[in-house]
Every structure is written in structure tokens, then in C-alpha cells.
């Protein structure tokens, strides 16, 4: 069964410039089909339409055209019913009460989700233990660190065991350890059956949480496949790391960019679309007494940077 389905979903924002009205097409005919239990990264540069899409899927915004269903409900028509079945985490927007102790705010959110007393207690206790929040329950939210606050945000969004979890930049501003904790928790929610719909600029979030990536640019979906395919298809570059038995001089092969040179090692980069891999490797093997050689795809961060810099859409 599909958890999220959209057809030609679009959103136009009207802007006034002087006396003139201007239309800005933020989301343009987006078609999505996401199965229950999937973990999807929805990525794209700032202003691509990611947050606007999430806000339509959670019923916050009404679309200008097209249709959408989340768990069989039209979000903007059945907003409250849908909210009982989904969880949302907006990295830049807190659902916790800033001045109240974090434990009180969890109890209040349990009431917002209509959880009966005993269930609210057991579920809260379970999440408090899972996120190691015991010592922080009596601390006002304003006094929590960003990482601690995000742990509470995600715990709060999981209180009612949502079937779909929408995460908009859940690790923004977190340190490495806090990011790892958040990712682990989201993976665990996914293992428990929750569908994950994640937007993030962080390659680590995408690689560790999602198996599928959907890339949106200027309001349109430009890529929808596995995360591994994203890396391969978007950048046709290959990275070659070579370890030689003798001291090396950088090679002068047209089309091959030397990224790093050490006494016995080289890191090279070239486009597999312009130069066949076997040709480059052949020349390297001829030239150097190779001790070890690895060929890899570029890191996902390079792919994301390429997308954001507007490099060509893969075929």
C-alpha cells in the first residue's frame, strides 16, 4: 500500500511587486508514489520546493493544483485525522514549550495526540529510556542543548507511533554525536515499520537513513531512484586512488585531474563518460609499478554539491 501518493501536485505563491502581482511556481507537477515502510530522502537546493511539498503533504499548505493522499487521506482536507497518524519534525521549528520542563511538554503532547493516560505513560517511559532523556525531564526546554532538544523533538514526534515520519532538516546544527543518535533513532523507527520522508542537506543523513532518493529542482522532480544510483548517475566521475611501489610523478593524461599527490600515492579523478575506465587504468598500470589501486564513485557530498550547483540532470 502506498503511504504517500501525489499527482501533478503544484503550489504557486503570489507575490506583489509594487502594483504588479507576480506568481512564483514553488512546486511544479510533482508525482510521488512512496510505499509504506520506505525510507526516502527528498533532496534539492534551497528554494527547490522541498519544504513546500512536505507542508502540503502534512496539510499545512493547500496546493494550487493536483492531488495528494497520505495514508489514504487528503492532507489539507483531513488535517487533524492525518496528524494522528503522522509525525513531523521541522529542524528549525520547535513543537516543545520553550519555558516548560521537557517532561511536561511530552505529557502535553501525549494529550494532544489523544493518548489515554496509561498508554501515554508507558509510551513516554519507553521513549525516554530509548533516547536517554531521564536526567533531562525536569530541565526547561530553553536550557537544553540543541542536540538534547532534537532528541526530545523526535521523541515527541514518535509518541503516537506514527505510520509516516516527515523530517525536515532534523540534524541541522547538531554535532557529530547528536547527528548519529538522531539517525539511529530514525532508522529504528523505520525498522519498526514507519515510512520515512526526509529532507536534508546532509549527505550523512541521506546515506545512513534513506535507500531511495528523490531530487527536486526548481519545483520539479529530476531524479527518483536508489541512493546508490544517485551517486553513480549524477556524477559520472570516478575517483582512482593508487599506491605505487616506487616514488611517483603525477601523470599527464588528458581529461584526468590530479586531486592529490604524495610520495608513493596519487588520487585522480576523471569523467567515465569522456574517458573509458579501462583506458585510464591501463595507462596507469603501464606507467607505475602499482602496489594497490581502488576505483570508487565520488562521495555523496560531491553529488549533492553538483546538484546544488545546477549540473546537468542525469539521463
Amino acid at each position: 500500500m502506498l503511504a504517500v501518493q501525489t499527482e501533478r501536485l503544484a503550489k504557486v505563491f503570489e507575490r506583489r511587486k509594487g502594483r504588479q502581482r507576480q506568481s512564483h511556481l514553488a512546486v511544479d507537477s510533482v508525482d510521488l508514489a512512496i510505499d509504506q515502510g520506505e525510507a526516502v530522502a527528498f533532496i534539492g537546493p534551497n528554494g527547490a520546493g522541498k519544504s513546500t511539498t512536505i507542508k502540503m503533504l502534512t496539510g499545512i499548505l493547500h496546493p494550487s493544483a493536483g492531488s495528494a493522499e497520505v495514508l489514504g487521506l487528503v492532507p489539507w482536507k483531513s488535517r487533524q485525522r492525518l496528524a494522528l497518524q503522522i509525525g513531523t519534525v521541522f529542524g528549525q521549528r520547535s513543537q516543545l514549550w520553550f519555558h516548560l520542563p521537557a517532561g511536561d511538554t511530552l505529557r502535553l503532547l501525549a494529550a494532544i495526540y489523544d493518548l489515554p493516560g496509561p498508554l501515554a505513560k508507558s509510551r513516554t517511559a519507553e521513549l525516554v529510556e530509548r533516547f536517554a532523556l531521564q536526567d533531562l525531564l525536569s530541565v526547561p526546554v530553553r536550557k537544553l542543548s540543541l542536540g538534547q532538544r532534537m532528541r526530545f523533538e523526535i521523541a515527541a514526534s514518535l509518541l503516537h507511533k506514527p505510520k509516516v515520519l516527515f523530517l525536515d532538516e532534523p540534524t541541522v546544527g547538531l554535532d557529530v554525536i547528536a547527528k548519529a543518535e538522531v539517525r539511529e533513532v530514525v532508522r529504528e523507527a523505520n525498522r519498526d515499520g514507519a515510512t520515512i520522508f526526509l529532507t536534508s542537506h546532509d549527505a550523512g543523513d541521506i546515506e545512513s537513513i534513506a535507500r531511495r532518493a528523490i531530487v527536486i529542482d526548481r519545483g520539479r522532480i529530476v531524479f527518483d531512484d536508489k541512493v546508490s544510483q544517485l551517486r553513480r548517475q549524477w556524477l559520472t566521475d570516478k575517483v582512482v586512488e593508487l599506491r605505487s611501489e616506487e616514488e611517483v610523478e603525477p601523470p599527464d593524461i588528458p581529461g584526468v585531474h590530479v586531486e592529490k599527490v604524495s610520495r608513493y600515492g596519487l588520487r585522480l579523478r576523471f569523467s567515465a563518460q569522456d574517458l573509458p575506465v579501462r583506458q585510464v587504468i591501463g595507462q596507469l598500470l603501464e606507467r607505475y609499478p602499482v602496489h594497490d589501486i581502488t576505483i570508487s564513485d565520488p562521495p555523496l557530498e560531491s553529488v549533492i554539491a553538483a546538484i546544488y550547483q545546477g549540473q546537468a540532470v542525469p539521463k
Partner: protein
Amino acid sequence: MSTADRILFWPRLLLSALRAQAAYRGAFVLSIAAMVLNDGVWLVFWWLYFSRFPVVHGWRLTDIAALWAIGATAIGLTHGLLGNLPRLAQLIMQGELDVYLSLPKSALPHLLLSRVHVANLGDVVFGPMVFLLLLHPTPARTGLFLLAVLLSAAIFFAFTLIVHTTTFYLGRADLLAEQVSISMVTFSTYPSPIFQGALRVLLFTVLPAGFIDTMPISVLRAPDPRFIAATAGFAVLLNALALLFWHRGLRRYESGNLFQARL
């Protein structure tokens, strides 16, 4: 969760909002005391005025005291306990409704009861205090006072909601909403007979402060069933219009991406 629990959620939310603001106890108490003092100074001003001119268009000092008791309590309820009401234009403009729209509760009561405005809580203290100390409360008069407060609060609430929800339609209406709300409060603190002609028409239509100005005479001193019925009818209509504005406006809500905390 039972229906009773669902109903009790709203006072519980309000209590949490109060606790959140009372986190800084000293500032909380001082803000309330300052508003009580501010309202008190106005009453002293009217006392000085009426000591020179005991009757103005049939109004006496007790009528002015009643007007302040009713108006302050009504404003305290709508702007103090529903602390996000006077900030609504700003919340809409800055895209701060997202939190309320992403949770499974009705967004309007949820956002209104999520914050108290401490200074206006002083009005909730001041109004009943004036009634109890200066206006000879009997059970019947207390009932009439509560009725006047209820009608005034309903009009203040609907009017404020309408002017703030214009933000959905105009894009930016926070300054307009603030100015118009201040005018409404200002015109609600003077005896109604001093306004005549076109201004009087305005005060019973576009800027309905006239209904509130008339409460001390037509509800408290000499209850007029026709006035009470007309005011109740107007309040119901105005509230229906306000809710229509709100729900229609939500379709035009544009959200935003500012960093936000729930204060």
C-alpha cells in the same frame, strides 16, 4: 481518550501556558501589577473629572467604573488568556502557524490557548476587583456583570480575529491590525453618548466599540432586553464571520522558514 479528557485538554493547555509565563515569577507578578496600576490611574483620572462634573450625558462615576470593570475583564480574557490573539497577524505573516497545523487539534483554539499575555492578565485582575469593591455586587448584578463581560469579550474576540486574519488576504496586516485593535480598545473606554452622528454609526458597525460603551447603562444599570438581544445577535454574527475569515484564510496561508520556538 474519553470525551471529558478531550474537553479538559483545553484548560490544561491554558494552565501550561500560564505556567510557562510564570517561569519568571518576578517579571510575571510585576507585569500584572503594572497593568492593574495603569488601569487604576485611568480610573483616578475619571474620579477627578467626575468630582468636577458629576453627570456627563447621564453618566456618573459608577457608570465609568462599570465600563472599565467590564472592558478590562473582557480585554483581559481575550488578549490576556488568549495571548496569541493580539499576535495573530504576526504569527500568520511569519509562518508560525505550522506547529499548530501539524498537530491533531483544532488549530485556532490550540494556538490561542498556547500563550498568555501577562500584561493583559492584569486586566483580568483589575476588572473584577473594581466590580467587587466599587459597584455593589449582588447576585443579580453579578449575573448582569458576567453577561456584559461575556458579550464584550465575544465582540472583542471576533473583531480582533477578523482584523488579524486580514493578513491572509493582504499579505501584511500586522500594523493595520494593531492600529485598529488599539482604536477599538480606546473607543471602548469612553461613555457612548459622547459619540454622535456618523461616528456613532461607525461604532455600532465597523468598529463595534459602541456596544461595549453601552453595557454599563443598558445591561448593568437598567437592563434593556432589546439591547442585550441585539448585542448577542451581533456578537454571534461577528463570530461567525470571524471564523469564516479564519477558515477561508487558512487556504491562503503561506507558511515560512524562520527559526522558531514555542514561547
